[in-house]
């Protein structure tokens, strides 16, 4: 008898919980996704009449924390200074304060997606984040939820293809742009050149070689004498270098992304007595970290490409823009040192580019933002090299596609107008 009564009681409790739960379920999600703030009725999330919030997911811990921290510091410094001046004036006549909400993804795609999901309700747009897999991890979710994922720091071309990625736009040049810039310079040379190519066997290496080959197509003075690849996991490329040295090419196009491997290649080539002119990608051409230990002065020329000034250059702090950048970085981003990674300057420029778009926005919506984003042309962001500019109007290209070829002069880089 008592068991029966207990059973009945338990059943009623369970039923009660169930009913309450179903009722609650009926009430929730009633408003759908319409999470509009107290601004105009159609305002997107993350923007009010007085402020706008930008979301960033980027590696702030782990192996890529160095550049990752820079991707937040630069843009924080830029908007920190602008906020201190009173805010950013938008195209709708309102002045808004720019808030930045940055989260750490430790270069883990799964965490990047989690961060995006956390931020998408409070941030107007996602920007500046570093990394191909991490940005790819939430690309489709951003498209599905119509959240802008713009001016991100990856050389992956997929983000600059409007058909595949309608809510995305890359900031930094894609790999093809870099290879092509060097190819064009070489093709314009008055002499004949024999080129040996070594590239990393993945999308990175392939991108550089593709761009380079397209640029020298039809140039009679250029001959590719040998082309080899290596794996990103290889610990040395001595075999490839020995084979390439035998061709006696006078130009060595080396699309290599691994710092210690570049240094050992520089040294090994000298040991072999092969002294060509080099091309190196922008991320593995640092004078202090790579060329000096590799004794690069032994070669007739080391070329790379760049679009932004290097903060470690001796003249940088003396220029007006450079000094402002460094003081903003220290004051607003808690980054007192001279940054060793270019990403600080890049994310500072991302801030300046966003300001241009904000000035054109007449409605506080993500749709209007994307429309205006694709109209920036010929804008020279702070700390850009001469000749480089922001152009977001060209489909298939990131915001910066024009890069300048630079030649190593024993201390730093100077713009190279001609080859040789």
């Amino acid at each position, binding site marked *: 008898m008592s068991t029966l009564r207990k059973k009945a009681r338990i059943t009623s409790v369970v039923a009660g919980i169930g009913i309450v739960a179903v009722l609650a379920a009926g009430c929730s999600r009633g408003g759908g996704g319409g999470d509009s703030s107290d601004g105009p009725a159609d305002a997107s999330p993350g923007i009010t009449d007085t402020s706008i919030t930008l979301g960033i997911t980027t590696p*702030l811990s782990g192996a890529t924390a160095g550049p990752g921290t820079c991707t937040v510091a630069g843009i924080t410094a830029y908007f920190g200074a602008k906020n201190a001046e009173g805010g950013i004036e938008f195209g709708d006549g309102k002045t808004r304060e720019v808030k930045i909400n940055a989260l750490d993804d430790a270069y883990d*795609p799964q965490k990047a997606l*989690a961060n995006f*999901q956390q931020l998408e309700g409070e941030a107007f747009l996602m920007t500046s984040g570093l990394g191909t897999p991490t940005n790819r991890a939430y690309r489709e979710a951003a498209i599905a939820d119509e959240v802008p994922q713009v001016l991100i720091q990856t050389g992956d071309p997929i983000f600059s293809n409007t058909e595949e990625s309608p809510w995305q736009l890359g900031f930094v040049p894609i790999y093809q742009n870099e290879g092509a810039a060097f190819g064009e310079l070489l093709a314009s040379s008055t002499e004949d050149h024999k080129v040996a190519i070594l590239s990393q066997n993945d999308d990175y290496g392939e991108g550089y070689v593709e761009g380079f080959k397209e640029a020298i197509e039809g140039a009679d003075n250029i001959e590719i004498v040998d082309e080899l690849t290596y*794996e990103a996991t290889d610990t040395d490329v001595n075999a490839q270098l020995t084979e390439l040295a035998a061709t006696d090419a006078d130009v060595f196009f080396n699309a290599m992304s691994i710092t210690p491997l570049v240094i050992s290649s520089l040294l090994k080539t000298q040991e072999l007595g092969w002294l060509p002119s080099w091309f190196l990608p922008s991320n593995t051409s640092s004078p202090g970290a790579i060329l000096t230990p590799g004794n690069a002065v032994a070669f007739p020329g080391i070329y790379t490409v760049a679009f932004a000034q290097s903060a470690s250059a001796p003249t940088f702090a003396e220029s007006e823009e450079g000094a402002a950048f460094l003081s903003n970085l220290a004051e607003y981003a808690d980054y007192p040192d001279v940054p060793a990674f270019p990403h600080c300057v890049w994310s500072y420029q991302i801030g300046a580019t966003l300001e241009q778009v904000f000035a054109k926005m007449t409605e506080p919506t993500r749709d209007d933002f994307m429309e205006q984003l694709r109209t920036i042309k010929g804008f020279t962001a702070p700390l850009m090299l001469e000749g480089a500019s922001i152009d977001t109007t060209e489909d298939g290209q990131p915001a910066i596609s024009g890069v300048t070829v630079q030649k190593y002069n024993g201390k730093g880089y100077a713009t190279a107008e001609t080859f040789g």
Partner: protein
Amino acid sequence: MAQAAGLKNNKWVRLAGILIVVVLLAVAPLILPEFANQTVARIGVFAVAVLGLNVVMGYTGQVSLGQIFFVGVGAYVTAYGVNNDWNIVLVFLLAILIPGIAGLFVALAAARLGGLAIAMVTIALPIVGVPLAKRLSEFTGGSQGTSARFSDAPEWTGLFDDQWQLYIVIVIGAATFLLTRNLVRGKYGRAFGIVKSNEAVASSMGISPYRYKVLAFTIASLIGGVAGFLYMVVVQYTSPETMSFGHSITLLASMVIGGAGSIIGSLLGGAYYVLAPQLTNLIDPNLTAALQGAILLLILFVLPGGLVSLPRLWRRKRRGARPGDPAQTGTVPTSPPPAPQNTQSEERGT
């Protein structure tokens, strides 16, 4: 206390408890906000991965540092199958079977070795896995990774994507947990336990330590494959980064923090894996690694048995405050694996 213990062992109370959990799981996805659903779904994914690790480490006592490799293989198989329009049930089965077969082969070799040598062999898995995934770009999409959107909610359900995905995770995850619970509480679980505590004794009882180590390892990789499939349900993208070695260590830490050799501990471990980065991000995104280290140390100092031992600690403390309590001599499990003791007390209760 004695009354409470009696209440706990009552069949109807337990049945009601299970019912409440089932109802909650069924209704929660409808009530919770989107981000909570997404977070719970991710917890489910990694709870399953930790559960697999628990079978081989917590229950059988063999150090495995390669669990993330099997999760990654499961995810890649899922992505490849979905992108080639294979039947989703077939994809699911392959996503379990292929990591399982890989695990079996590794185990056949590794289980011959004793102690730390197994750990060394399993370290190799994620270290080989990342470059392998980059090189086999026809199948894996190379270093750019591959995405597969197959878990969006179908029209007829009227559900949001996050709700639908959470339901998939709950159904598959709950089935995996239930099957594993039955496994470790039955004959095999006892065999695992003996292999863990003393291989010589196991041999003398007619239990082949080699065979049971291989079995545990294979089951762990099968469960890893399930977690890989669920990973694709929730994240819809995988890349070589997914199976990076660091994640294997985090999984291991999550297992210890949740509670080694415990089913509930696996769930708590999954929660730690997902929530620790999210919480530390809220405190200070620049200090996530340091804060996670601090949390790990703190939990292990206060609760060496993992989060699952929290109620036990609390109970012991209460009893300590009231010496002479008759319940002190009760059947409270104090050391893992608690499974056999629990079953006994449950049987006595009915």
